[in-house]
């Protein structure tokens, strides 16, 4: 997410406030050694973090991916593209992407639901702040805690079964034990957890639409759906596109919920779980790094497609 934001907004702000960078007293302009250095001084700390915590590890990962490193040994032998050849010649490695389809369907349901709720709550609704809180709350809870809660929720005779029994449903499947159901259960837990974030993004975008437009629409006799279709959707088109791409990337790299809840057992293994197992269970850090590189490339390609379909409309922002 962070990699998409800065470029889009910063230039517009800078040009709209030209007076802000001018020194108050002209004579003291050079006191800090030149105004050109000042922004770099401010940038030093975030840049240092970015380099040390993001770029250095990525470069390391690229290097590991062409070695046979086991994660511990002091020497790493260069093996060229062997690891990549192995990934693309072992069907089992790619089969797990099939599991991602469940998360993709879940993610789309999550977007629709979040958009629906955000639209509802952007109009005047009773207790709207309470509902906003309730919807966003799961996103604030630690993923491991959520995993444990859902483990009790899904176990035989657990919360879900008890709830269903109240409404008369007795014959329930094993939510995590049945291989045909487990991924649906896990994807649903992920939806519960991450919907709040989409909801807040959509709500923020919707609320930035000037109220006059709704008033004008009201005067023209527009229904709520018309307002949604012709005012809200066009206004938040870009945040929709961004969320969609993030949802796809998230579905491909689903990890936390299935790892905490099943550890990838019972056919719920995702690509990232498989990567982690390869690296840390079987001590094949080289191969696992190559798998991570493949995932990175896939996500980059998808992001590229997003930029192509929803290009930055800089003029619109600046005006």
């Amino acid at each position, binding site marked *: 997410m962070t990699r998409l934001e800065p470029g889009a907004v910063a230039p517009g702000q800078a040009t709209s406030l030209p007076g802000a960078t001018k020194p108050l007293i002209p004579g003291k302009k050079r006191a800090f050694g030149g105004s050109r250095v000042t922004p*770099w001084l401010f940038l030093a700390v975030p840049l240092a973090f970015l380099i040390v915590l993001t770029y250095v590890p990525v470069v390391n990962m690229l290097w590991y991916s062409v070695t046979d490193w086991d994660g511990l*040994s002091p020497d790493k032998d260069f093996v060229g593209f062997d690891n990549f050849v192995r990934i693309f010649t072992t069907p089992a490695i790619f089969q797990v992407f099939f599991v991602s389809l469940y998360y993709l369907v879940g993610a789309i349901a999550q977007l629709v639901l979040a958009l629906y709720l955000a639209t509802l709550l952007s109009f005047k609704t009773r207790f709207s702040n309470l509902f906003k809180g309730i919807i966003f709350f799961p996103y604030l809870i630690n993923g491991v805690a959520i995993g444990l809660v859902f483990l009790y929720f*899904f176990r*035989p005779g657990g919360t879900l079964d008890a709830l269903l029994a109240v409404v008369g449903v007795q014959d329930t499947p094993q939510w995590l034990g049945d291989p045909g159901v487990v991924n649906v259960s896990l994807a649903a837990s992920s939806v519960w957890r991450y919907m709040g974030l989409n909801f807040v993004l959509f709500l923020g975008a919707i609320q930035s639409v000037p109220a006059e437009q709704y008033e004008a629409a009201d005067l023209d006799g527009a229904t709520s759906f018309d307002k949604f279709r012709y005012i809200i959707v066009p206004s938040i088109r870009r945040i929709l596109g961004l969320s969609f791409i993030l949802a796809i990337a998230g579905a491909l790299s689903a990890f936390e919920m299935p790892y905490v809840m*099943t550890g990838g057992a019972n056919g719920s293994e995702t690509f990232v779980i498989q990567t982690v197992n390869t690296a840390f269970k*079987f001590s094949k850090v080289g191969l696992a790094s190559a798998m991570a590189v493949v995932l990175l490339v896939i996500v980059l390609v998808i992001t590229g497609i997003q930029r192509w379909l929803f290009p930055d409309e800089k003029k619109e922002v600046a005006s």
Partner: protein
Amino acid sequence: MKKTVIAATGGIVIAALALSGCSAGSSNDDGKPTGTITVLTNRTDLVDTTFKDYAAQFEKKYPGTDVKFEALTDYEGDAKIRLSSKDYGDALLIPSSTVTKDKYSSYFEPLGKTSDLEKTYRFAGDGSYNGEVYGISTFGSAMGIVINKTVWKDAGITTPPATQDEYLADLKAIKDKTDAIPYYTNYKDGWPLAGLENALGTTQGADARMKLAADKSPWKAGSDQYNIDDMLFTTVSEGLSEPDPTTTNWEESKDLLAQGKIGTMALGSWAVSQMQDAATKAGKSADEIGFWPMPWQTDGKFTSVTTTDKLLAVNKNSKNKATAKAWVNWFINDSGYAKSQGAISPVKSDPAPSTLKDFQDIGVEYVELNPDPKGKESLLTDIANTSEVDIFGNTYRQKLIDVARGAAAGTEGSYFATLNKQWAAAKTQVDQ
């Protein structure tokens, strides 16, 4: 201008890196124990209670010392990652699932000659490489089945089953005559499944590890590997285990066994005292809990493999080796840790634990596995890693349970054939 700015930014980054990696101080290699040491431990449950007392006793014996603990929840994983830095405490447990013996000398301080220490300590061979001991056992366990005696009695069984068929018939009797779940796999937590591997050697004897490494198809009748996995498979496929294995819970399983809702679990003898605690907590007698050997006899006699739990070692890069060594010595010899766990003490002269009383009555013979021969210390781990059949882990056994309960495609025969194929291929690759 721009270049200087970039250079300055770079300088700040380097300075930040240098500062974080820097800690000054002289080292205390062989002097009197004094100063602070950090001890890494896997016992998150004891670190604020029992271990605090241990530290206090140690600090009393060696005034001027200060013992700090760092408890790691995922000990093996976290400790392994920290080994690639120099910062992994002063005394620590060897993360043995990933660090093979041939690498001991790169990370740990030698603690003495194997020929000397094996006179005093059990499992000295497990922590040795090239005649030097790098890690001393914290405690040992015997492998067997932990049972709820009342449940087994209610099913009409009072003597340990001597064959696998008898064992399965007994579990069936428990299923038919009582409300208890006959066997609990602990599938979700996984590590109890990994622990089954400790039964390796029950029928094949002290050289079982090398026999396994030499076998191209270990999953066929006659080997311990087959016995372990076939027994698990049949138990599950006959419906003698918990209905939904994916939602099991270790902490809860202790209570369930103590309360007679579970009949059996295959574990090391270290589990007995924890189960007894659970029984006492549930208002029952600790005698509810029994411990029997695995149901495979050799020449009409039961055998049980004793294995060491984690090995305690001293960081090679420690600045305070003297204190760390003193801690290792004190912890092994004087802390009473092994006794408090109801486990076999690493000190040979200590008496057998009360948890193994059943074994004494039955007349079980103990087998301690031989250390791997020189040059082959990492062989078995290498084959397991290359084949991705994690015999010391839980992934392939979870799959095995999935196949057995019909949640994954295949039969016992087809799954074992796949395992054999992967194993043989990896063996060829490693042997090169």
